[in-house]
């Protein structure tokens, strides 16, 4: 998959996972891996960008004598998901258009 497209999709996946409950890095990787291949090196900059954009907030929780960072979605983050879903309808139209064109070409 195109790397930029993948980053964009993972962003939404992260936000989606966080709508269920607050989560931390490794758990996010495990949850998102069910739907799309993801590595730490991809996740780290995405989390940073989402935080910088105010789509999620970060807080630390002590866990087994160390600090673990938890991420919580903001209202802005929820809105981002809604925007994505409404925009994706347009993308699906384009997909159908291209798909139809490709099928016609084959005939």
């Amino acid at each position, binding site marked *: 998959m195109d790397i930029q497209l993948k980053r964009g999709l993972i962003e939404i996946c992260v936000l989606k996972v966080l709508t269920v409950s607050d989560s931390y*890095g*490794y758990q996010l990787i495990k949850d998102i891996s069910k739907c799309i291949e993801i590595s730490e090196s991809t996740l780290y*900059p995405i989390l*940073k960008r989402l935080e910088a954009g105010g789509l999620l907030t970060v807080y630390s929780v002590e866990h087994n004598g160390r600090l673990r960072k938890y991420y919580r979605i903001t209202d802005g983050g929820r809105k981002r998901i809604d925007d994505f879903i409404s925009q994706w309808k347009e993308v699906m139209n384009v997909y159908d258009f291209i798909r139809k064109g490709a099928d016609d070409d084959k005939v």
Partner: protein
Amino acid sequence: MFTILSERVLMMTKSEFINTLIQRLSGLDESEITKAVAFYSEMIDDRVEDSMTEEEAVESLGSIDSIVNEIFEQLPLSAVIKQKVKKNQNNTLWIILSIVGFPVWFPLSVALLVIVFSLYISIWAIIISLFAAVVSFIVAGVCSIGAGIAFCVIKTPAVGAAIIGVGFMLTGLFILLIKPMIALCKQTGRFTGFVCRKLFGSRKGKAL
């Protein structure tokens, strides 16, 4: 070579990995490095808790190259060039101002240039017309003297003498005015040379 490198990654412990990461990120903001180290060390700890060995956990993070690349790639451009921009801030401000102000300063400076040039041309036009007037004195003077003599011979000597007198007057005026006129020309020429030398001279000085 490649297998040796990947074996080294495979063998890395957490502290080795963190040290390498710090080394590879050197040059970035300290807070940037601290954040990255905190994130990756948490990742390793969580994997170890998830029953992996330290080395396995490090290995599962992927190559350190891609980790470092992703961090650099995703950094806002401002963070990467912050240092450089600080140095050139004044310069940049000037460049931005001159670009933004282009619609204002460009027509203004062109207008100024045109005004200065037309003033210069008009100075020379005045000099040339004065010259023409002075030259017309001598032409008219000589012609009057000739005509006066002819008048004396052919018609009334008194009128002829008067015309010769006017001719002498005009010639006298020419002789009187021609010296200051030449001086005026020379002065204007010298002034032009002076201004040119100032402009080009200062430019040469700057270039050197």
